[in-house]
């Protein structure tokens, strides 16, 4: 087990570096002078103060070669004029960059540190994503198993159709439909935008979260359930299940003990696919329901051309997904000896 874990971790490091590199490289796609675009907020009419521009360029090494900019962004050493003495800086601000946990400040609100704001935003996104994931695993998986055991019955057929529909629903459309159906224009059951304010009761918080969680989860819900059903049907037709049936075991044991254990294995891999979908979906869901989460933060960063927000959210999205994949890989290795000896 240990060699496998070590090998997997060793491969994880270059991937992490690759993620930071790709996020950094993305910013190089911006046509024109990034400093000017950033300070003018993307509009051509705003005049940019030349002095501010020079200060901005110097602080973020924009006039230096790209590799130096990248290392400056990566950290842990600050390479600017006030950076670490090793690199010819004054030593006033020796450490900086990603590895030292410094994600710079927002461009348009210079007193706000990106990392603090990111923490506040994650406090909205993570609970939503976890709730959606939980809903997926606790309801979708049993549903998939049940449908597989009853394959061919009316229940199975109806659930297959519903899940297919859910799987194909565009997120933004589902969100709009949910708002139309359950908002003030329809049944009026739930509030359609925002979060409950400070000091709201638990019930209020819950009602605000229902629609976003449903909107966030139905996609991965359908995905998990469909995969689960397919996997279970495959397992149920395998030789060892037939053997178990042949030796006279009750169906309950055959399904619940023999088949289920093997059918559950792919769930860990599915986690690696469901998780990025949740983070990607957060952008749209948080925009529709007006939630101040991480996806919204990235979107706002893009709109205001705040590169440090974009860089931070992109990197974080990549790192989180990568961690999800790592966890799911390690979990499957724990559960399935075939993987760790491959």
């Amino acid at each position, binding site marked *: 087990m240990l060699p496998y874990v070590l090998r997997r971790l060793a491969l994880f490091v270059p991937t992490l570096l690759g993620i930071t590199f790709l996020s950094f490289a993305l910013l190089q796609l911006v046509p024109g002078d990034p400093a000017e675009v950033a300070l003018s907020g993307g509009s051509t009419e705003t005049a940019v103060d030349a002095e501010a521009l020079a200060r901005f360029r110097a602080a973020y090494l924009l006039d230096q070669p790209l590799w130096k900019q990248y290392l400056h962004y990566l950290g842990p050493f600050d390479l600017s004029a006030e950076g670490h003495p090793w690199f010819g800086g004054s030593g006033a601000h020796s450490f900086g960059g990603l590895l030292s946990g410094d994600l710079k400040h927002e461009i348009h609100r210079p007193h706000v540190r990106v990392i603090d704001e990111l923490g506040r935003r994650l406090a909205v996104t993570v609970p939503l994503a976890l709730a959606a994931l939980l809903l997926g695993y606790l309801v979708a998986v049993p549903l998939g198993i049940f449908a597989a055991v009853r394959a061919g019955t009316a229940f199975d057929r109806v659930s297959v159709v519903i899940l297919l529909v859910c799987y194909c629903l565009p997120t*933004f459309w589902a969100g709009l439909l949910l708002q139309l159906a359950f908002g003030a224009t329809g049944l009026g059951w739930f509030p359609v935008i925002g979060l409950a304010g400070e000091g709201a009761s638990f019930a209020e918080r819950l009602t605000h979260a229902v629609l976003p969680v449903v909107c966030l989860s139905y996609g991965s819900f359908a995905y998990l359930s469909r995969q689960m059903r397919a996997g279970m049907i495959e397992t149920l037709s395998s030789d060892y299940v037939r053997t178990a049936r042949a030796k006279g075991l009750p169906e309950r044991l055959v399904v619940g003990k023999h088949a289920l254990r093997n059918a559950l294995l792919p769930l860990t891999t599915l986690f690696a696919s469901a998780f990025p979908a949740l983070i990607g979906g957060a*952008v749209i869901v948080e925009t529709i329901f007006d939630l101040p989460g991480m996806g919204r933060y990235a979107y706002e960063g*893009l709109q205001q051309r705040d590169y440090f927000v974009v860089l931070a959210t992109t990197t974080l999205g990549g790192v989180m997904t990568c961690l999800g994949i790592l966890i799911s890989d390690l979990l499957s290795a724990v559960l399935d000896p075939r993987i760790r000896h491959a």
Partner: protein
Amino acid sequence: MLEGRLESDGFGPLARAQEHLARRRGFRYALLGLALMVSLALYAPLLASDRPLYLEAVRRGEYERARRTLMPVAKNLASLLAKDEAAFLAARAASSSQTLAAARAGEHQALSTRIASLRASLSPTEGEPLAALEQELAAAVALAERGEVAAAAQAGDALAQRAQELREVLDPARVTLLPRRAFPAFAALAPLESGLMVAWLGVLLLPFLARRLGARRVLLASALLGALCALAANRGGDAFHTASYKTELDKLELEPVRVCFAPIPYGYAEQHPEEALRPPTWLAASELGPDGAYLRGGRAPRADPVTGFVPETRAIEVRAGEPAFNSPLRHVLGTDLTGRDLLARALHGARVSLAVGGLATALLLFIGTLVGALAGYFGGLLDLALSRALEVVVSFPLFFLVLVAVALVGPSMWNVVLVLGCVGWTGVARLARAEFQRQRELDYVAAARTLGFAWPRIVFRHVLPNALAPLLVAGTFAVASAILVEAGLSFLGYGVRVPIASWGGLSSESRELAHWWLQLFPGLFLFVTVLCVQLVGDALRDALDPRSARGGLA
């Protein structure tokens, strides 16, 4: 297009799957739905257009303009013909860098166009004097080109004189103007568009012709015909060049004899500001009074409780070819913020969605197959490097990465295609890698190697066809996912830009729940399309690759 071909073709690894697919009812319906969507998208400029499909009209406006300007243009030309190079240089404005020859050529051209458009509306006998004028014009210009300034000046004066006389002779009250035929909606098509439209007809007819002629022959013929059409399109022909046919028809500058508009007589960017955000017209809530005010429901104009201000309404402008202002067919799906017809926009939006889906998938299949094939076939260090690259790209949520990249590069349809193709290839690459790893151990590859074939030949000619089936399935799912991503991008404002329509962009035009039709209908088109693609993909997967239960992008 691929899906359409599969139904009745019999080559490659698809032959085995055919029987399975033929038995599957859902697959047929999905294929039908998809063919319908592609047809709607392809023929959208003929289904919804503010230009008539067929127009037979007297071009009174154009005739009058040409008649009025005939004499001034002739005079200009005459004065140019009378000048030599030195006089021209002395007289021309300092800022102009035109040469005398260019100025003459310009006036010559202007006069010829006017003569041509006058003649086009007249019978040959009545156009006789114009033919004479044309000959004189050619003679005068020829004289000037030979440098005989004095003679040219004389001829130019005669020309101007003649033009002056003709102005009276050709008065519309004295001559009969003939109607002319044109196909404005067809004339506006791009060559590629008309080519595709013709070729697609062949694909649509495939189920009926394939048994008798063979699918391959039908497809080849339709492709050839399409190419011919693309080459022949917009060559010559008598097109009416006006900015707005509806306005000219309304003002009787075009006097219609017979006119046939598209079934939905609105252009995708044609605005009706006085009808902004009108609900679907078959609803009672959409009924308007003659002054343009809603008669019923919460939409009737109400005075502001504080200021007493009553919002102003304008009478609805019903342009040529449009249904009456309270007809249920006027705006079947309602209108958007600036009064553009939603149905027309939704049809044109299909073009963006399907084009992005198809092109992005082609690109990602290419990149993914290439990366996967190299990594899988060669293994070793190359595999390690490519797998790391793949893992890095996989580590970003697809939608998120595409959103950031497109927003940074600048939103446009081509950028969406490019970014989606460059980011979405990972799923295909994984499949290709696994498949190539498996195939390279097989005997036939060893045999090919023994024969001394170079690796490109082995990889692309021998292994690739055998590994195609799962890639095809993944490609189908990638189409669905690309369409969804594009819609999401446009919804957030980073896809295609207005006035170009896209399903996602239409939904985001108003976030007010009161404008439910904007949110409901475009999404419905999107949903049906994705559902059809998904069903086709599911069926293909079951037919081609029964073991695999996964597919598509995350």
